[in-house]
């Protein structure tokens, strides 16, 4: 993996998304376009008390690296940054920050979208939500997560068109 181009950080403590964005911008000051995404813990109107995230140190970083490599192979990116929280978080706390820099906006937007879809279901993280009532549940990927990821399959658009046509 191109360590100059890709930065991956797993953090046990809260990270500051503005600081991440400012740092990323300094890294690629001459890029024409920077797209960023921030994911935060959903409060679900007070129903969620906390979210615990676990990972597999070593494998998680390696798999995120592979995902970032795929993005770099697919779009002409100048830099990619991924920061991901683990540990126990409260609603409103940042979970994930993704940034991509390119000469033009489209590759930057698409790469961030792709990276998020793959981080959801191809990076070794596990989430457990504790409700305000004390109940706890493991969060499994939803059907829409795999549908989102399927959009990036090589011939997804033609398959989708075929499926629609067959109906």
């Amino acid at each position: 993996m191109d360590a100059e181009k890709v930065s991956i950080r797993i953090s046990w403590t809260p990270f500051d998304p503005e600081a991440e964005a400012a740092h990323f911008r300094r890294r690629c000051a001459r890029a024409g376009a920077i797209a960023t995404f921030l994911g935060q813990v959903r409060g679900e109107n007070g129903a969620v008390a906390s979210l615990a995230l676990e990972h597999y140190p070593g494998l998680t970083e390696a798999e995120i690296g592979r995902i970032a490599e795929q993005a770099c192979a697919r779009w002409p990116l100048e830099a990619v940054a991924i920061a991901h929280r683990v540990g126990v978080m409260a609603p409103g706390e940042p979970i994930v920050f993704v940034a991509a820099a390119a000469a033009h906006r489209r590759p930057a937007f698409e790469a961030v979208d792709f990276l998020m879809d793959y981080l959801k279901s191809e990076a070794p993280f596990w989430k457990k939500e504790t409700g305000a009532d004390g109940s706890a549940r493991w969060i499994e990927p939803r059907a829409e997560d795999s549908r989102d990821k399927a959009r990036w399959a090589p011939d997804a658009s033609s398959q989708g068109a075929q499926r629609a046509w067959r109906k």
Partner: protein
Amino acid sequence: MAIRVLFFGRLHEVVGAREREIEPPDWVDTPAALIDWLAAGDARIGAALSAPSVRVAVDQAIVERDSPLAGAREVAFMPPFSGG
């Protein structure tokens, strides 16, 4: 040789441990055989570990269940990922 076995996400609650140090017998030569040995008659553990959605990593590389286990130091059982 001793193998460190890791159980992630909901699997550690099913198994009752996040990790175990084990010394399996010689016939345990694939992750599939390891599941049989770990389950040892506990149908609940057997079903949880052998669910098709569970991924297996041997020494930090994701592998198929019938891949060789010879020389492995660490085996991980991973339920569906949920990052982002």
